[in-house]
């Protein structure tokens, strides 16, 4: 944002970006090469980096909690972990009727990991841009919210799909699963095999895609609104009248605070929804139609 203050204050605007350029720069990923809509040879290095960092923090957090566990009155850290674990355990107990020894920790990990990745959205939008500029690395593209990248969320949703298929086959047997695929919603008549299979296929695809895109849409829209609010602050040097500049900058601070507080709710809610849907899909694999 200070890049814009300098650029706008010089009034000739030789190197200050326009609003569209600013947003396009901030929405581009640090990737192997430029992105098309679908390009499987491309890797978004920033998404990979930040999801690994958040996964490491999640693992360290939970492992430290389990190491320091003590009977008696728990400390605050242990109390926090117990609170989260108990919440996840209650949800999983009511949803999944079967062996939960893998599914409940899966839900806990997914919840904390998605929560941490979503929380990267609270960092100021230009923080890493300034850090890169100060350390002399220029202005690379760098997006820090892995769940605001459809690749990130789709990866997680594909793992949930793989687990759905695994648990379906494990609980019902391969033959039982195929039988259910072709006979499930409508009935066991051979003429209904194709409609049954079509509906089941659509159900699996819709669950996976909606899981991925729900999280992506929420986080992407949130990040974009932060960027648009940051553009308000860029008006500090752009207007000729002091009143307008002050008003817009004040609006920037106010709108930024309000949106940040609302976004806390969205971050928590989306992590909770991802966890709940993972549990629901695992539970449905256990029950069958």
């Amino acid at each position, binding site marked *: 944002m200070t890049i814009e203050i300098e650029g706008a204050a010089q009034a000739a605007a030789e190197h200050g970006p326009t609003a*569209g350029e600013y*947003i*396009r720069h901030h*929405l581009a990923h640090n990737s192997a090469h430029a992105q098309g*809509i679908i390009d499987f040879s491309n890797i978004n290095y920033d998404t990979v980096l930040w999801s690994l960092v958040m996964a490491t923090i999640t693992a360290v957090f939970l492992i430290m909690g389990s190491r320091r566990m003590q009977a008696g009155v728990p400390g605050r850290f242990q109390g926090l972990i117990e609170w989260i674990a108990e919440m996840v355990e209650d949800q999983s107990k009511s949803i999944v009727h079967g062996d939960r020894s893998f599914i409940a920790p899966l839900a806990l990990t997914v919840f904390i990991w998605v929560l941490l990745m979503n929380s990267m959205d609270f960092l100021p939008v230009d923080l890493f841009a300034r850090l890169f500029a100060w350390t002399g690395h220029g202005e690379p593209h760098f997006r820090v919210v892995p769940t605001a990248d459809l690749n990130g969320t789709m990866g997680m949703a594909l793992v949930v799909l793989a687990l759905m298929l695994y648990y379906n086959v494990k609980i019902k047997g391969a033959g039982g699963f195929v039988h259910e695929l072709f006979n499930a919603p409508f009935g066991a008549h051979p003429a209904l095999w194709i409609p049954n299979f079509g509906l089941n296929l659509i159900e699996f695809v819709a669950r996976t895609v*909606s899981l991925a*895109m*729900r999280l*992506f*849409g*929420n986080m*992407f*829209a949130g990040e*974009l609104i932060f960027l648009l609010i940051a553009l308000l602050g860029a008006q500090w040097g752009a207007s000729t009248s002091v009143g307008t500049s002050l008003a817009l900058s004040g609006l920037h601070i106010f709108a930024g605070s309000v949106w940040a507080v609302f976004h806390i709710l969205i971050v928590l*809610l*989306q992590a*909770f*929804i991802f966890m*709940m849907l993972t549990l629901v899909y695992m539970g449905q694999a256990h029950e069958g139609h």
Partner: protein
Amino acid sequence: MTTSAFVALACGLIIGLGAIGACIGIGVMGGKYIEASARQPELMNTLQTKMFLLAGLIDAAFLIGVGIAMMFAFASPFGA
């Protein structure tokens, strides 16, 4: 009308029509929740968790639409 005009119109329609559905859905669900809380106040807390979960699910399609509309607005694949 140019391509960018059509893209702008598309973004407006996506967000506007999506908002209609999402807001009516949340309104109906919220109304039912308040009604249920008035009838059985002891169920307020258990229902609140489920209500937030449903709110997130109802908003899903709308926010997917917002994400797509934002992508059209700033990085349009139509060459606008």
